[in-house]
């Protein structure tokens, strides 16, 4: 049963399994374990990023395509919900219509990009997506009549998911049972379902072919796989998952704007999470998102403590100032690429493997 659910892709490391179970429990019980709005927001953000990063991993880790336009689809999902909810007023039909329309747009765009990618070198493709994503973001802020421009859109959710909706007068374990809580669990369930779906995709015969293409496209074609088709399908799939992640974010925030979903910064976060977690392992997205979002949310608080502690040394205090939290995030960035080349998941798995099967530091074989 579990094996079916996980598509026979177990964490393959005891430590990893324990961490994942703990993470699952923690996310499931956050509203009851840690009181406060902030904690719940952090947990929700982890859920959304998990889906987003896993969808990116499908593209990057499994298919070997480096695209900087992934947040575009994330943004499309969020804008879909936002625009529909603003125009049609809060309601389930707005949610559904917005999501479906966003999926359709993502589908078309991903298809177009997928086909274009065939024409240019991989590295060019990445640079082009970078420019493309920037242009899309500008477009979103220019079309202010539809998208709310730079300011973005603030909107309401169906009554059932709004904070004002109370479905029980008496709080449970001190937590008020309101629409917000319901909304959180909606995200939670969505996240788990989407995760299992992606796990299944990468462990299907299709997913295996993707890995082959990543390793050696030329040979994959030579043994009879139509690389173009596989690539395109995988771009489209990953775009659709990212779109759903965007919709989830919009549902939670009840806000969307260009900076929130389309900015390059979000793309950077996604990249970093993939690397921290471990590329080509959907599980990595979970660990990475949790680590990163928590670090990002609490780093400033931590730095405040640290800089107070060294207040006597002005230079050090300036470096440790909470305002310079990005500096430390950057350091984290560099260190994680240094010390976790295969990510947390990769690392844990290596420790678990029998010696003979551990990956070796090998130079790539020359191909013709």
């Amino acid at each position: 049963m579990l094996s079916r659910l996980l598509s026979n892709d177990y964490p393959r490391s005891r430590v990893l399994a324990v961490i994942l179970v703990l993470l699952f429990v923690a996310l499931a019980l956050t509203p009851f374990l840690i009181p406060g709005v902030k904690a719940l927001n952090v947990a929700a953000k982890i859920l959304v990023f998990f889906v987003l990063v896993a969808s990116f991993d499908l593209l990057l880790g499994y298919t070997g395509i480096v695209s900087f336009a992934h947040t575009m689809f994330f943004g499309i999902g969020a804008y879909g919900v936002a625009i529909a909810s603003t125009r049609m007023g809060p309601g389930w039909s707005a949610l559904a219509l917005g999501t479906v329309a966003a999926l359709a747009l993502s589908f078309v765009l991903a298809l177009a990009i997928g086909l274009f990618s065939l024409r240019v070198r991989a590295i060019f493709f990445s640079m082009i997506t970078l420019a493309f994503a920037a242009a899309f973001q500008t477009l979103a802020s220019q079309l202010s009549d539809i998208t709310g421009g730079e300011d973005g859109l603030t909107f309401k959710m169906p009554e059932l998911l709004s904070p004002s909706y109370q479905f029980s007068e008496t709080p449970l374990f001190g937590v008020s049972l309101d629409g917000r809580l319901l909304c959180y669990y909606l995200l939670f369930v969505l996240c788990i379902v989407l995760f299992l779906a992606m796990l299944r995709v990468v462990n299907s015969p299709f997913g295996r072919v993707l890995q082959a293409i990543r390793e050696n496209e030329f040979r994959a074609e030579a043994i009879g796989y139509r690389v173009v088709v596989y690539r395109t399908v995988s771009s489209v799939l990953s775009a659709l998952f990212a779109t759903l992640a965007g919709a989830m974010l919009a549902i939670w925030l009840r806000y969307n704007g260009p900076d929130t979903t389309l900015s390059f910064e979000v793309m950077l976060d996604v990249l970093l999470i993939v690397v921290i977690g471990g590329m080509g392992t959907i599980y990595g997205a979970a660990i990475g998102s949790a680590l990163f979002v928590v670090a990002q949310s609490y780093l400033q608080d931590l730095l405040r403590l640290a800089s107070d502690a060294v207040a006597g040394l002005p230079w050090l205090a300036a470096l440790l100032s909470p305002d310079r939290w990005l500096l430390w995030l950057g350091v984290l960035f560099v260190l994680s690429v240094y010390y976790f080349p295969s990510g947390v998941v990769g690392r844990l798995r290596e420790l678990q493997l029998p010696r003979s099967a551990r990956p070796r530091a090998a130079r790539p074989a020359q191909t013709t």
Partner: protein
Amino acid sequence: MNLKDLDWKPLALVPVLALLVLPFVGSPSTWVTLTVAGLAMGMIIFIIASGLTLVFGLMDVLNFGHGVFIALGAFVATSVLGAMGDYTGSASLWRNLLAVLPAMVVAMLVAAAVGLAFERFIVRPVYGNHLKQILITMGGMIIGEELIKVIWGPQQIPLPLPEGMRGSLYFGDAAVEKYRLIAVVVGAIVFGVLLWTLARTKIGLLIRAGVQDREMVESLGYRIRVLFVGVFVVGSALAGLGGVMWGLYQQNVVPQMGAQVNVLIFMVLIIGGLGSTTGALVGALLVGLMANYTGFLVPKAALFSNILLMMAILLWRPQGVYALAK
């Protein structure tokens, strides 16, 4: 290079484009203003992109941190020029140059020194792996930008152009800013020196070979390690120079300026074709011209002019106008 082997089509692109828009612009003086300004802008872009042609084009290192060196150069220039108020305030061009030249030299030296550290601690472990390069140099970019904020503060700092370099020269009804002409001279020098070094020495070859198979280059007896460091440092220094030029053009600097120009210069390199100095120049000139022409003729499209240009070029030559590598 043999003149017969020269692929002239991309070079012809620049005048062809300029002549093509002439009828649309109408007024010849406006056309001259737009064209000269666009070409000069292209030269400035070329200067800031030149460091990256070395690092990205030859060494195949996708250095997202390149922008930091540009910003660094500009900030160093604010400090140097700030300390030389006497010279910058003077209306004599020569006294101005006496201030700007040291600013350039110091900026290049500082950028080179930081480049040395950057190579050692950030780039070295990730040669040959694009994805990791992107990630780790992004990290380096963030760190660099934040350190600039720690040293110079987060706010915008004015970098006024020395008196004598301000204003325009007039050719009939057409006006050309003096500073842009200076940029053309600097750009031409950078271009010439780069071209000469790469054509006259084995350095270019060695680096390209080293990117493909480092071990083999070492087995041939070359210390590719040192060479890579050297190229990276020169690339950083050029970025520092570019920063000074760019900062003086904008007349103010912000810590984010590096990130702001990153995408632009990557596009220039893609248009030009990786590793080609001439290509980078052609790409930069095209970008500079296109921006002005579309800005004048169809302002709505100006925002996307670079992307459209890039797409068009890639449809024509998928490797950029001059592709050295396969």
